[in-house]
């Protein structure tokens, strides 16, 4: 077990290292002239030269990479050529709203996906099952950004059930930052009107973000439940006179949940990446909107910063999922140990 974890940590470190190289290469390969963008159009050659020196673009690549790596380790991601602010600072303010969005979407994903999968499996082949399966298929097939646009148009604009865009209403007084996570802060302060307003704003982006992932969860839970329901201990449980509810939840689901937990864990990293497709539609001020703006402005260091942050989150969340899965599942544990030795 220790050997496996050590090897897995080795892969994580290697992946993170390669990630920094990829990030750096992306930044250097990007055509366009960061120095020129930095000083703005119509600048003199001397001003561009000065900006180049200021941004450190005139040194050899290896030196630039080394400086870059050292800077990264000091949480210095460079300066955005668009906002003219440190990218760490930009990401620092963009990341908390995105993480809150991912958490809410994940909650939706779990409370909708798992019950639907269970019901679908319990009535496998029936009408309810067919409806759920088509629904899951549609959820996985509809592009998240298209769902976002349509939810915004139909639910927010036409029906007026939720606000069109933003994170909070402009009239809301946010109060003090405790953790820097606005919804969590409102919760901690007991500021219910702010919390309600924030949740109102987050519902549609969260649905748009979650739908595709929920489709996958429904299908995973359904198929592992069907597998579990075919086992002999289920027949025994029924024979003992237990209710269907007890058999489904206590006996089948408990054994069927593990594959779904693994997928849920991996989805965290994917979701953070998918915020890029959803947030900008709702002008939600997270890392996704920041990424789209950075792309629009050819803000290369900012794009690289985003690749780094989401890439690292992806690598680490998959690592944690792997470890948790190994601890939770004896079969996987045996398999992994066998393979790593």
């Amino acid at each position, binding site marked *: 077990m220790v050997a496996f974890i050590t090897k897995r940590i080795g892969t994580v470190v290697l*992946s993170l290292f390669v990630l920094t190289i990829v990030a750096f290469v992306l930044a250097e390969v990007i055509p366009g002239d960061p120095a020129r963008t930095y000083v703005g159009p119509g600048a003199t050659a001397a001003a561009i030269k000065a900006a180049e020196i200021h941004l450190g673009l005139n040194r050899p690549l290896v030196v630039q990479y080394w400086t870059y790596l050292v800077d990264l380790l000091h949480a210095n991601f460079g300066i955005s050529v668009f906002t003219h602010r440190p990218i760490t600072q930009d990401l620092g303010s963009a990341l908390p709203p995105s993480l809150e969005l991912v958490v809410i979407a994940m909650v939706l994903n779990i409370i909708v996906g798992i019950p639907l999968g269970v019901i679908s499996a319990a009535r496998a082949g029936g009408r309810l099952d067919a409806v759920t399966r*088509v629904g899951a298929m549609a959820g996985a097939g*509809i*592009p998240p950004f298209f769902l976002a646009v349509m939810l915004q148009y139909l639910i927010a604009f036409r029906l007026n059930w939720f606000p069109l865009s933003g994170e909070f209403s402009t009239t809301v007084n946010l109060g003090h930052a405790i953790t820097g996570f606005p919804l969590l802060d409102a919760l901690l302060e007991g500021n219910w009107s702010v919390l309600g307003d924030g949740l109102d704003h987050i519902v549609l982006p969260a649905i748009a973000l979650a739908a595709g992932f929920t489709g996958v969860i429904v299908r995973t839970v359904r198929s592992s439940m069907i597998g579990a329901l075919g086992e002999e201990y289920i027949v025994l449980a029924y024979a003992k006179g237990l209710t269907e509810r007890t058999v489904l939840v206590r006996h089948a689901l408990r054994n069927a949940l593990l594959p779904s937990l693994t997928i849920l864990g991996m989805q965290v990293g994917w979701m953070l990446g998918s915020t890029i*497709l959803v947030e*900008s539609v709702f002008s939600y001020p997270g890392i996704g909107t920041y990424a789209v703006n950075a*792309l629009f402005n050819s803000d290369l260091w900012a794009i690289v910063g985003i690749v780094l942050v989401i890439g690292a989150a992806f690598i680490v969340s*998959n690592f944690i999922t792997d470890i948790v899965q190994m601890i939770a599942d004896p079969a996987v544990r045996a398999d992994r140990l066998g393979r790593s030795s």
Partner: protein
Amino acid sequence: MSAVVSDPVMLAERSPGGASMEQREGRTRRIIAVLRTHPVEAIGLCIALFMVLVALFGPLVAPQNPDDVSFATRMLPPSATNWFGTDDAGRDVLSRVLYGARTTLSSVAIVILIAASVGTLVGTLAALGGRAVDEFLMRLTDIGLSFPPLVLAIGLSAAFGGGLTAAIAAISLSWWPGYARLVRTLVADTANRDFVENARVLGVSRLRLVLRHILPNALDLLFVQVTLDIAFVALTLSGLSFIGAGARPPSPEWGAMISEGSQVITSAWWVAAFPGIALTLTAIGFSLVGDLLRGQLDPRLKTMLGR
């Protein structure tokens, strides 16, 4: 090829060479039987085939030039003359959706062709090239798999300077590791089968063994994964275009069209809605076909593919 996959026994032990007339007839009958018991998947197959037809012939039947700007006919709602309405530059949305099918499906085909070729090469080398080669290539593959495809594609696409070609290259680059890992498993598995051993004993050369005996039997299963991936690649590609890292307006690409449509959504919903529906139907159709193919495989292979 779907006929081959629909029969696990034949699939597993098929020897190289064409099928006889009777075999082919039997297969057709079996396909019809399978489709009859899977009505939803049959609809998916129809949608997928329809989209392929649209991609092939859509531009021929498109009522207007998709790039014809006409400010007199801006943002007209769907009508008898413009079935899907017109966009904010007065272009016919139906014509643009029809052209978009070709853009999307041909781009997806290129991505999958590149990714599957590279993946097959790397996977085969890893499976048959000995321990050191295997270790190195699989480490590389693991690192590739540990990056989020969308985000990596955004970075790469920005690095290449944006545009559809950049997006295609970017997605191909982040997609091959999945195929490499799959092909490695399939090839290693196939290499241990009896008919390969028999061929080896008969003195078939190593290269011929790989090309004529191992790969054809492994690649049928790769084909299933490819079908499952079509929807995913199409969504990623149009997603890149939507956020401005892929095909750029005014080119008729579905993601870019949805992006343009989202700017005018409150006054002209049809500009975003129709390309979005086309994209959704394409994704669902191909997923259903992939599911059907996977469902027909033997369970052992099913778990192998179920990533």
